[in-house]
């Protein structure tokens, strides 16, 4: 039984989150730069303790995950789920596995990857995305042009490759933040 799941996982912060009612103007402005659906989450309110870094980092996250065109959003979510598994972040994995399943309408494919690992992926495009995502996550210094060749062979153009690099890099960041600043709580049952 894998520890990864698509169920909702909780997250309990280790430093007190900012309270929306008593947040400073700078904290509120920083939260405005973050993805709208998440800016009142416990996680973003925890990051709001340091408004200066949240404003830039939240805007970066928004750009990486939601910028139009380029790599389809489902592929970005798939990549970040694979990265989160490689980094052992159960919370991030659950969130992005769920988003992939919603966007792609392929929850079974995601469930198999969660249970058996990315090597179980049979779709060639997703497999190529998974391979690059894992290698860039675990051994960035070993990545060369040859690692991009499978993506290129599937027709991936420059903007899509750049979007994939951004997604992988973003979750090197997100997984560390999430695991260090709080504890994930597995669903009951």
């Amino acid at each position: 039984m894998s520890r990864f799941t698509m169920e909702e996982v909780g997250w309990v912060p280790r430093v007190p989150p900012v309270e929306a009612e008593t947040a400073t103007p700078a904290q509120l402005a920083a939260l405005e730069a973050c993805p709208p659906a998440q800016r009142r989450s416990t996680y973003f309110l925890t990051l709001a303790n340091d408004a200066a870094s949240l404003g830039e980092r939240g805007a970066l996250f928004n750009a990486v995950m939601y910028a139009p065109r380029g790599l389809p959003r489902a592929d970005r979510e798939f990549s970040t789920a694979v990265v989160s598994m490689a980094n052992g972040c159960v919370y991030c994995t659950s969130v992005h596995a769920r988003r992939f399943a919603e966007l792609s309408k392929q929850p079974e494919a995601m469930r198999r990857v969660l249970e058996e690992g990315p090597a179980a992926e049979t779709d060639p495009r997703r497999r190529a995305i998974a391979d690059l995502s894992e290698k860039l996550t675990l051994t960035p210094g070993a990545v060369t042009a040859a690692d991009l060749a499978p993506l290129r062979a599937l027709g991936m153009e420059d903007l899509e490759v750049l979007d994939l690099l951004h997604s992988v890099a973003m979750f090197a960041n997100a997984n560390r933040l999430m695991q260090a600043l709080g504890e994930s709580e597995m669903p009951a049952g």
Partner: protein
Amino acid sequence: MSGDDLIEGLLGIAPGSPLAALRLRRPEARTHAQGAYRELLMPADPGALSHADRAALALRTALREGDTALAAHYRGLLAAGGEEAIMLAEDLSGAPMEGRLAALLRYADLVAARPAEVTQGVIDALSALGLTARDIVAVTQLVAFVPYQVRLMAGLRAMQGESAA
């Protein structure tokens, strides 16, 4: 434009080159990565974490993550912080280190390499050093941001390798 962008400077991505043009197709990702770097390393109000503390944490994380070009940049930023801070930040031997900066560097090691091992006790120990909630979030953001830079740079180097082939 590359004069204002750390990553393009370190990778030698020249203004007007194909990779520079590609990065400008994602202007917000480019601008806010640079902005995060600025706010994490050189914030106007650094709280309890001096610019030298921040450069030391970034240097150690870049070294741990194996990017020598990025590490050299942070070593340059730390030069004003003194030789002792550089030696401490670069000592990856696991030898016992004492003092406040050593405690911060040990936290950086955990966040960079084994974030699942951070516990409430680890965070409380930072509070005991005088760090506020804001300082703790800032140091964690900083140490978690360097791995972003390392992976983006590694991926862009691979793209540079493609065009060289």
